[in-house]
């Protein structure tokens, strides 16, 4: 069935370093992919979304490229900040259907 895999449960980095959070998916359809971010005690919020193959999408310093050939949508940032500490969820949506299916999430902790 359709699914999303996030391989890292916990990522800890020092401020200023680059980060890449992995997201791969399985589906027979042409999907929409999303990254949502959830700060402590807050609601998940949309960070990025894409349905276009090989096109980089960016927001708030984060970027991701949907690669349909490898079924991936990895999230990257060139220099993490303390405020980036949060839970990051990758999610998948099939065309013409509104439900998002989420991966298990990656907790990013940025240390001084």
């Amino acid at each position, binding site marked *: 069935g359709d699914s999303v895999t996030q391989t890292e449960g916990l990522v800890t980095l020092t401020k200023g370093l680059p980060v890449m959070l992995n997201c791969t998916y399985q589906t027979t359809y042409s999907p929409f992919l*999303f990254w949502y971010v959830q700060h402590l005690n807050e*609601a*998940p919020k949309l960070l990025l979304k894409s349905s276009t193959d090989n096109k980089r999408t960016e927001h708030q310093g984060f970027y991701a490229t949907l690669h349909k050939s490898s079924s991936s949508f990895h999230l990257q940032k060139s220099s993490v900040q303390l405020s980036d500490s949060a839970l990051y969820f990758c*999610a998948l949506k099939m065309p013409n259907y*509104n*439900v998002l299916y*989420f991966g298990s*999430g990656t907790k990013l902790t940025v240390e001084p």
Partner: protein
Amino acid sequence: NAGVIQTPRHKVTGKGQEATLWCEPISGHSAVFWYRQTIVQGLEFLTYFRNQAPIDDSGMPKERFSAQMPNQSHSTLKIQSTQPQDSAVYLCASSFTGGADAETLYFGSGTRLTVL
């Protein structure tokens, strides 16, 4: 725009009691979703309404969970005979079903349910 409103923020029940969680979607949004969040499972889809009609409840535990959307301004998730394994944060989200922003889910802050 106040966003998606969920009440209560916290609820504590004893094992075997009933819990009802409330959600007010963003005005104008025609799709409403319920998710359950735990550390182990992450964000699990429970159920989905479109224009108040139930569309997909494939994620709902069948025996004790039920959801309704009696009007366009609120939805409820009811858990009968709560069990400790029901302890989680229950998140409601809403979205448009057409147009440029149709794919974006807007989440409420959730209800943290603790079953003792």
